[in-house]
């Protein structure tokens, strides 16, 4: 699949990144890059370190070795709220929505970095706080339209079925207008129809807004269809890196993960 936008230069680089928890090495000397506007997939068996890779990019964990460079600036020690400010947004494998709030409020939290009114201004409401609230509400409604979740905007997220919760989480990530979107198994637990919808959304986000997407996914059909390049991890090491076709035909990858049709 060719991207509608031309794929640009490398926007994220990992060099020799290693991450260990106590004695367990989650990531072992990983070097890879992600180019602007592309869709990069990360695949591999369970426990290979895929989520840890996203967590390291995101700032949730800090690698013991190696450097991470985002848009030319090294930033391997940043905290998550700093990476969020840089334009990196993320969804989680186990949905990390705020259960006490409605869909609309959840997505509005995604805009919190754009809202500058002080607490005092918010207490008074009229003036800057009100204006900001309405402006951001308009933006959030755009995302809601885009992901077709208008009918549930006031529902508490705890009541939604799993597939819709995943969509709301994606909406929250998109609301931040990120330049890099990290998706951790966005289609896990979905049926065929829901997967098709989700694929469409991911592709639309990439085409319309030019967002660079890094996604972890187990469904090989999805990966081969929508991604521009693929990284394969196994036991914390990189064992494959290239276009979907290259990876599909690599012997190492087939042995470790993909297998052959019987």
């Amino acid at each position: 699949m060719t991207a509608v936008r031309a794929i640009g230069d490398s926007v994220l680089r990992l060099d020799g990144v290693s991450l260990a928890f106590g004695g367990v090495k989650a990531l072992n000397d990983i070097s890879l890059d992600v180019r602007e506007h592309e869709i990069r997939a990360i695949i591999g068996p369970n426990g290979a370190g895929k989520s840890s890779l996203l967590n390291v990019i995101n700032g949730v964990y800090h690698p013991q070795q190696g450097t991470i460079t985002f848009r030319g600036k090294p930033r391997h020690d940043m905290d998550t709220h700093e990476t969020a400010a840089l334009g990196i947004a993320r969804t989680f494998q186990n949905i990390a929505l705020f259960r006490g709030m409605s869909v609309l409020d959840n997505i509005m939290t995604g805009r919190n970095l754009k809202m500058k009114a002080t607490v005092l201004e918010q207490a008074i409401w009229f003036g800057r706080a009100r204006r900001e609230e309405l402006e951001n509400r308009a933006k959030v409604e755009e995302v809601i339209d885009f992901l077709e979740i208008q009918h549930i905007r006031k529902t508490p997220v705890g009541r939604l079925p799993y597939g819709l919760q995943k969509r709301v989480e994606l909406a929250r990530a998109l609301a931040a207008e990120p330049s890099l979107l990290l998706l951790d198994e966005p289609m896990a637990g979905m049926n065929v129809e829901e997967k098709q919808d989700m694929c469409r959304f991911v592709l639309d986000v990439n085409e319309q807004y030019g967002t660079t997407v890094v996604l972890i996914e187990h469904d090989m059909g999805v990966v081969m269809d929508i991604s521009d390049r693929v990284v394969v991890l196994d036991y914390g090491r990189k064992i494959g890196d290239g276009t979907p076709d290259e990876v599909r035909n690599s012997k190492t990858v087939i042995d470790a993960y993909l297998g052959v049709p019987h």
Partner: protein
Amino acid sequence: MQFFFEVLIGGLLSGVMYSLVALGFVLIYKASGVFNFAQGSLVFFAALTFVGLMEHGLPFGLALLVTLLAMILLGLLIEKFVLRPLVNQPQISLFMATIGLSFLIEGLAQLLWGANVRGLDIGIQDEPLAWIADPTGINVSKFDLAAAGIAAVLVVMLALFFSRTRIGRALRAVADDHQAALAVGIPLQQIWAIVWAVAGFVALVAGLLWGARNGVQFALTFVALKALPVLILGGFDSVPGAIVGGLIIGSTEKLAEVYLGPYVGGGIEGWFPYVLALIFLLVRPEGLFGEKIIRRI
């Protein structure tokens, strides 16, 4: 120097008393994951019931037995009417329910037995032991030593119970995850009934000792609040931790009152353990013996 040792030992021994109350907390927390704020009021209830029965003419042994039965019954009622309906609620709800429970039990105790202060005599006198005092000049109370001995026995029993028996393992499973324990067929309700009964027994022992030392009065419940810093130091789920924590709190509290108190007008005992616990929490959030909490995302 002698005086220092007296204060220290006195503090250590009063720390043993705190540990006894903390033990009750630890038991229930280890077994059900519930932080039982009402432990103090259980101690109060036990002491008051025992004294009340004695006042009505029951002999020591019979009063003890009836009180023990009452505590077990109370534990069963708590399990049935408070814990069971709240299975799988977040911990904070259970905690707040136990706060409500503490008020309920305190009110009930005073309703049944009245609110007068009473003395409690369990046969051990609060006088210095001659065989220590004569050579060294340090006064160690017979009573305090006996209390320490009783506490030690209890601790050993409980530690063995949790680590060696099948029920102990079941209790630990329940503390970790109610639903999972149910799923493997652990009889949740029976387990909880056992635990609360044992906690009631521990509360009874603590109540008798505390009551004998300080008289049975409502202020006993505040003493129980002091068990909280003990738990923070020792960890909420550690039996040895409750002992060590109690010793530390008891001794530092007394030492601070005696040596620092005069400089700042006294009354330090009221807050010193809490502030100590607070500082400790900042350095080591899970206590001396507690398990480190790991969260996975």
